[in-house]
């Protein structure tokens, strides 16, 4: 009998059951670490540090999880906040280095071996579009859930997903066989 996330959360709340929390970490570590790897542009060490911070914060603040959203959605929000705070500390957040990074990773000079790599194409998107595409298209969140995770209006999420998708398609088409 597999317990659902809500049961495990209840055990953590009632019994301070760290085994139950461990099970939650095991279930969600891949998606949280994967999302952070994309947000940090595949900086694996930084992404894993942020993922650890995410789960530690989740444990300390688990009483604030009211079960209105899915546990994974709540985790993504914490992960995104961890990333945003770290990026602010590093002064690399939205827009500041985006143009430079965009120039550094021009699709025209990308190694041909990576041309069909969708994940690489995703990493070329600006942060606001990348995070929206990651959450909605890759992790299956609804636009509404993604808006709550990213703390931006619903309309902005929809626009970012639309633009992100368009850019991905364009990039992949450019990399595709002539």
């Amino acid at each position, binding site marked *: 009998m597999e*317990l659902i996330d809500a049961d495990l959360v209840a055990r953590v709340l009632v*019994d*301070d059951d760290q085994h139950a929390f461990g099970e939650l*970490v095991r279930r969600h*570590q*891949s998606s949280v670490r994967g999302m952070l790897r994309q947000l940090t542009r595949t900086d694996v060490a930084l992404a894993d540090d942020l993922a650890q911070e995410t789960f530690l914060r989740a444990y*300390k603040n688990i009483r604030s999880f009211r079960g209105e959203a899915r546990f994974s959605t709540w985790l993504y929000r914490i992960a995104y906040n961890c990333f945003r705070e770290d990026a602010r500390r590093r002064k690399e957040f939205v827009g500041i280095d985006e143009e430079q990074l965009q120039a550094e990773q021009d699709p025209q000079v990308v190694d041909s071996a990576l041309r069909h790599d969708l994940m690489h194409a995703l990493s070329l998107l600006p942060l606001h579009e990348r995070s929206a595409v990651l959450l909605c*298209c890759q992790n299956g969140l609804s636009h509404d859930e993604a808006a709550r995770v990213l703390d931006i209006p619903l309309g902005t999420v929809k626009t970012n997903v639309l633009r992100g998708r368009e850019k991905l398609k364009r990039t992949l088409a450019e990399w595709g066989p002539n």
Partner: protein
Amino acid sequence: MDEISEEDQLDRQLREAAPYLDDNGFTARVLHQLPAPGRTRRSLRGAILLAAALLASALAYVASDGGRFLIVAMTRLAALPTLWFFVVVFGSGILVMTAGAVAAIVKASELQS
């Protein structure tokens, strides 16, 4: 229609392109960093349960005129024929054992999951 299926295809490709990341000790590292579990909460819960049980016993004792119902029940039990006495004792034993076995099975399946 084509645009929608194109979007679906892109989403599917994105999901498939995201590799499953093996744990590789990640969970253990997180658990290692968690603060020690609060013993006070558990012991407090135990104390509350014990206090409630004692209070309920005291109330039952007072309400039953000093536990007279127990003396009456024991007298009735002692007056039963030997066979009936055996049936009551055996039935009670089976009932308690079944309840214990069910509780153990439920707990074991929870721990296994």
